[in-house]
């Protein structure tokens, strides 16, 4: 069974969180914990690499909406790359793509965020 995990690194001002596993309530909370800790340390730009999270549920994705809201308060931004097509479609249906950005590659993401 794939347990949920995150790996965090920074590129300049951008915090990149690579997730692996099912992005459900448990996974979403892990991601938000990492984000809020980094925000407390002053970070405002976040990228999620979702290559190894090809399965999500709406509870997990709802937690990303919370992250977007918190980032709006500090003029921060959230972006994503390496999304499975169904994950991108889910983000579209839920409207996340209006308030955060799906990039097609890490390169494009790093460019687009800075």
């Amino acid at each position, binding site marked *: *069974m794939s347990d949920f995990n995150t790996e965090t690194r920074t590129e300049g001002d951008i915090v990149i969180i690579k997730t692996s596993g*099912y992005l*459900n309530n448990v996974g979403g909370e892990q991601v938000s914990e990492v984000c809020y800790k980094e925000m407390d340390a002053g970070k405002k730009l976040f990228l999620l690499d979702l290559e190894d999270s090809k*399965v*999500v*549920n*709406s*509870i997990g*994705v*709802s*937690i990303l*909406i*919370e992250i*977007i*809201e918190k980032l*709006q308060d500090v003029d921060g931004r959230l972006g994503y790359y390496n999304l*499975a*097509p*169904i994950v991108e*479609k*889910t983000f579209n*249906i*839920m*409207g*996340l793509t*209006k*308030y955060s950005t799906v990039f097609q590659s890490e390169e494009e993401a790093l460019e687009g965020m800075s």
Partner: protein
Amino acid sequence: MSAKKITPKVELTIPIIPDMELAATKTSEVVAKHMGLSEEKSAEISMALIEATINAFEHSESKSANVEIHFVIQGDTLEIKVTDHGKGFDKSQVAIPNIEEKLESDHKRGWGLQLIQELMDTVEFASTEDGTTVTMTKKKI
């Protein structure tokens, strides 16, 4: 392993165990592949099935704690029924979510039914105080 020419029936009865919905999606993937559905459609079915299953787990407050999932292959159409024996609900009372409201509200959730409806070709809800059945279909083409 030659398949016999009988309408294949797939039935799961699953308890409320974390990640149990992933056993259901593995089943839908195998069935979708067997029917020759595209990977895109198969992924849409899986996502809708996850949402219907966790709703049944979470909201039904069922005493039996079991959820039944039936797959029926009807020609080029896959029909999936997700049944719980819980308290039921009135779908017309459920608000349609939108991101602008959610960004201001403390209640970020409430997306499952919307996703199911967007991802499947047809969706029907039959709900009484004895439980709920969500019937959803996806066509091959």
